[in-house]
């Protein structure tokens, strides 16, 4: 099932099997190298597997970009506790819709990545935590799991190797916060999705307080390729320290929105104009949010850069989940900011004060300004509130609201200033904070 026409510029690694009929079925998977990487991994030592993943320069695809091999290496091998593999399939970052595509079209690739991770750290059980709205995805993953059991790729003594591994899907029930790894683990255990204080990190104390490898869907889906063709070949697909390809989700004001697999480091302007077919109606590019709604916005003039973690960081933004949200010249940045702040205020779990209060104050301040009832100094106040949230929360949700907000109010200051007091009836007493 394809959602958009592929682009000739794509480099299909994780998506290479999508072209086949019934790509989600195990027979198709097996006919096209499926589970061969896992069989190769069974003949490797756990250290060699982890070393291969380190060489690949695979970095976490959920958003943080942490080196996957390093993360796996933190799992204490000689712990007497059971070990777990947990897949973050809670995909909730606005703009992001790639994990869904991976699971719907090639669910066995994800299972194979989990199996290799399990082999590397000695895990015997895996959970795929899938957001509740993705019920059709859960059904597809459940069917794939059943197929894998039937063919002996899951269960006891897999392929005669002596390895045991069980896999389960686990549904979420509507919460952006549960995409944060420690909140996800709380939710997996049947609780409110409040984040945990770290350390200890999940590698040491994760699911059920046991050592856990926790990665995003796309990260696990990259692993079979790394084992099959080598970490060095995977690393060579991308840029230094940014191995492999990425699934870029193009959305917003773009002629050919869609999910495209391209090498890490692909130029953002080429992504918009050559892959995405440019901006509709001959409009000019105004701004891009390059990696999901939590990433600082880039102005049009800042977009001539390679899409990898380090280049985006150097440009003051983030690659994040690689969700590229394109905005044309007519976009009102105050409206965009208000919608995003409404989102973060709604999704803040309330566990810590800077985020719980900060997101709501930002929503109210931007809301007042948007309604034309802002006071002079509101733009400064919005920036100050945001800066006071940065780095002061248990989990990154506070930063996720503050970072785009700071970028919007500083880079598009004049739009915010122009809204101040613009309402026809603005005057004394009109500045009360409207609750939206």
């Amino acid at each position, binding site marked *: 099932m394809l*959602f*958009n026409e592929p682009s000739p510029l794509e480099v299909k690694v994780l998506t290479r099997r999508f072209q086949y009929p019934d790509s989600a079925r195990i027979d198709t998977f097996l006919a096209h190298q499926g589970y061969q990487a896992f069989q190769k991994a069974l003949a490797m030592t756990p250290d060699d597997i982890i070393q291969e993943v380190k060489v690949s320069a695979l970095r976490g695809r959920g958003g943080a970009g942490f080196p996957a091999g390093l993360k796996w290496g933190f799992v204490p091998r000689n712990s007497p506790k*059971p070990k777990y593999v947990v897949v973050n399939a809670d*995909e*909730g*970052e*606005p*703009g*992001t*819709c790639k*994990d*869904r595509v991976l699971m719907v079209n090639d669910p066995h690739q994800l299972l194979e990545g989990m199996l290799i991770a399990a082999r590397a750290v000695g895990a015997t*059980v895996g959970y795929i935590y899938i*957001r*509740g*709205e*993705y*019920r*059709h995805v859960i059904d597809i993953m459940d069917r794939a799991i059943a197929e894998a059991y039937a063919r002996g790729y899951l269960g006891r003594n897999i392929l005669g190797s002596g390895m045991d591994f069980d896999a*389960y899907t*686990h*549904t*979420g*029930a*509507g*919460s*952006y916060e549960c995409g944060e790894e420690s909140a996800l683990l709380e*939710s*997996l*255990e*049947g*609780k*409110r*999705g409040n984040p945990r204080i770290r350390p200890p990190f999940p590698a040491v104390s994760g699911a*059920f307080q046991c050592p856990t490898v926790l990665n995003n869907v796309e990260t696990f889906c990259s692993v079979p390729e790394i084992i099959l063709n080598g970490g060095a070949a995977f690393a060579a697909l991308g840029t230094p320290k940014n191995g492999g390809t990425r699934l870029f*989700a*193009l*959305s*917003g*004001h773009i002629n050919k*929105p*869609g*999910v495209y697999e391209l090498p890490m480091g692909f130029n953002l302007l080429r992504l918009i104009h050559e892959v995405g077919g440019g901006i509709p109606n001959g409009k000019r590019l105004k701004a891009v*949010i390059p990696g999901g*709604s939590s990433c600082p916005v880039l102005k049009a003039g800042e977009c001539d850069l390679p899409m990898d973690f380090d280049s985006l960081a150097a440009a003051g933004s983030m690659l994040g989940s690689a*969700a590229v*949200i*394109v*905005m044309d010249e007519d*976009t009102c940045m105050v*409206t*965009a900011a208000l*919608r*995003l702040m409404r*989102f973060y205020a*709604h*999704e803040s*779990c309330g566990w810590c004060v800077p985020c719980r209060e900060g997101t709501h104050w930002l929503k109210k301040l931007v809301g007042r300004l948007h309604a034309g009832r802002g006071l002079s100094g509101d733009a400064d106040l919005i920036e100050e509130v945001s800066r006071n949230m940065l780095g002061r929360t248990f989990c990154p949700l506070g930063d996720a609201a503050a970072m785009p907000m700071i970028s919007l109010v500083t880079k598009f200051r004049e739009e915010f200033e122009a809204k101040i007091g613009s309402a026809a009836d603005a005057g004394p007493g009109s500045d009360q904070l409207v609750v939206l």
Partner: protein
Amino acid sequence: MTFSPQLETKFEKLLTSYPEGRQRAALIPMLLFAQDETGSLSPEVVSEIASRLGLTLLEVEEVISYYSMLRKQPLGRHNLQICTNISCLLTGGVALFEHACRKLGIGSGEVTPDGRFSIEEVECIGACSWAPAIMVNYDYHHHLTIEKLDRLIESLQEGSQDHAVQ
């Protein structure tokens, strides 16, 4: 209380999916799957699931209040979840939301008097590259326009009438 045999089978599997002594992990899936069958998490459903997992009512209630998909009041038979987050905002999601509200005469979180429809303005549903998008219960509808939304609502209306006649 009893659930359908299909749901009981699901529950049985859930109770063996987690480590011994950690069956509470099944709580959120059990609540959501039960709600799918019963329409909402009534006091009877909540107390049944609490007792099966050995949890207090408070422990279950605090979980229900956290998750936006879990609800204690039933919504319409066709729950229109209309995304207005950033990618849908840029591609006409707000107009879809406002149009649906006008057409059905209800606002977000409300149910039509006949119980057929409800509307929720929702956060990102992971359909950004096929925006604007909405969900009707668990079904995705991509690349929506006002005209397509009208046809969708009308087809659901007709479907409901057939259902009512039967």
